[in-house]
């Protein structure tokens, strides 16, 4: 995003947070979006989190071949990596692809078929009506998905580690329960909140200002995913720097 785009993005957000015309209709849209973003992504997040946990455990076990390092460390490293980095960041990047492209193409198509103009003519604040429910759903459902991903990632680590024999069940459980710092959950949820905002607002911006036709809508979707991923990684660094 160059500075012009960033300025337009901020102005769009200002319009998004105007007072809704009718709260009841907005709330209905929020629940629909929560279903789409949250429930609709459960399957994908489950598969990815479980496999990442399993693979991570195997790789840590492979790298920690030393008599001086107890095998319980495998569980501890898997736990902290899952909670602090992999669950929020990988989930967010995957969701940026799934949800971001859908949001961008939905709003972009509405733009090129004049549906957004129709909303404006009716006197409806179109950024608010179209984008606010998505942002609210994003900042509530992405943290919930991340919690879900944390649990499944650690469980995946257990399954992968014990099935392969890299770590015994008791060593793994001892590892994940030793020296647990609950603050890591807070950091992870702050990241998830920020990522939820990015995943919904950046693609909405890309879609909202589309000009042209089907080709431009597709280009906007691609751009939305790319920009969202870069923004997620940049914010990941900033939040980590600020909170840890």
């Amino acid at each position: 995003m160059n500075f012009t785009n960033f300025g337009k993005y901020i102005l769009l957000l200002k319009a998004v947070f105007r007072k809704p015309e009718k709260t009841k209709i907005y709330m209905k849209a929020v629940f629909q979006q929560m279903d789409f973003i949250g429930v609709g992504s459960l399957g994908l997040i489950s598969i990815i989190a479980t496999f990442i946990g399993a693979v991570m455990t195997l790789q840590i076990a492979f790298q920690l071949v030393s008599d001086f390092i107890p095998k319980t460390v495998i569980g501890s490293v898997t736990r902290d990596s899952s909670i602090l980095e992999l669950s929020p960041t990988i989930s967010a990047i995957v969701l940026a692809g799934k949800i971001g492209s859908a949001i961008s193409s939905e709003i972009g198509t509405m733009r090129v078929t004049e549906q957004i103009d129709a909303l404006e003519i009716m006197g409806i604040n179109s950024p608010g009506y179209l984008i606010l429910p998505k942002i609210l759903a994003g900042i509530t459902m992405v943290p919930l998905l991340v919690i879900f991903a944390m649990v499944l990632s650690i469980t995946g680590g257990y399954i992968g580690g014990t099935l392969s024999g890299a770590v015994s069940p008791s060593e793994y459980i001892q590892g994940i329960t030793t020296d647990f710092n609950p603050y890591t959950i807070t950091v992870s949820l702050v990241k998830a909140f920020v990522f939820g905002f990015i995943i919904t607002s950046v693609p909405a911006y890309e879609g909202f200002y589309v000009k042209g036709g089907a080709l431009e809508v597709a280009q906007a979707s691609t751009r939305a995913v790319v920009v969202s991923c870069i923004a997620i990684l940049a914010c990941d660094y900033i939040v980590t720097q600020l909170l840890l």
Partner: protein
Amino acid sequence: MIEIKDIHKSFGENNVLKGISGKFEAGVTNLIIGGSGSGKTTLLKCMIGLHHPETGSVEYDGREFTQMSFEERIEIRKEIGMLFQGSALFDSMTVEENIMFPLNMFTEQPRSEKLDRVNFCLDRVNLEGKNKLFPAELSGGMKKRVGIARAIAMNPKYLFCDEPNSGLDPKTSIVIDELIKELTEEYNTTTIVVTHDMNSVMGIGDYIMFLHEGKKFWEGSNKEIAHTDIQELNDFVFASRFMKAAKEKF
């Protein structure tokens, strides 16, 4: 009544509108005509606030629109109905939900009353019983009629139609034209139709504004248009052999 004064609009170096003024009265069908790129859709978009003119004013019954704040514009926009070139129906909603949408947003009526209004509007455009269909299940003409039904759902004082006949067969075009004219006279709306359909011009053009290269070249009625000597207008209106033959009979 809508009055526009000295509207200028540019896109970069391209001056699309070069000082257009005019009055559009209530209860008559006002047409804005002109060739492709003449600025008619841009003028329409300036009038409804989708484009911001560089200079000039748009007055809705004496209320200056261009200088209004977002909140003030909303009050005017509640009085506006618009039929878009591509109908602009909301894909994810049924016909009934499309028409009920502005009622849901801006009224506190019970659902039964809103449903009555939806059925009345559908009946008015001869689409009774089509409530549960989605836009993808409708023909082009039906989409236009649903667009009109949605536009009149809130009893608008001002009705705008952007090329209502584009993509329609001649018979359906006449149905749409007659519907627009009937609604205009029945509800005394200020109706502005942007078109380059000559059947519409001759059929419903109570007042016609002809734009050429971003300027107003001529204004008058469909009865006067056949007798004008303006070359640009004659080249536009009587471009086809059929229209030339028709002119000779006037």
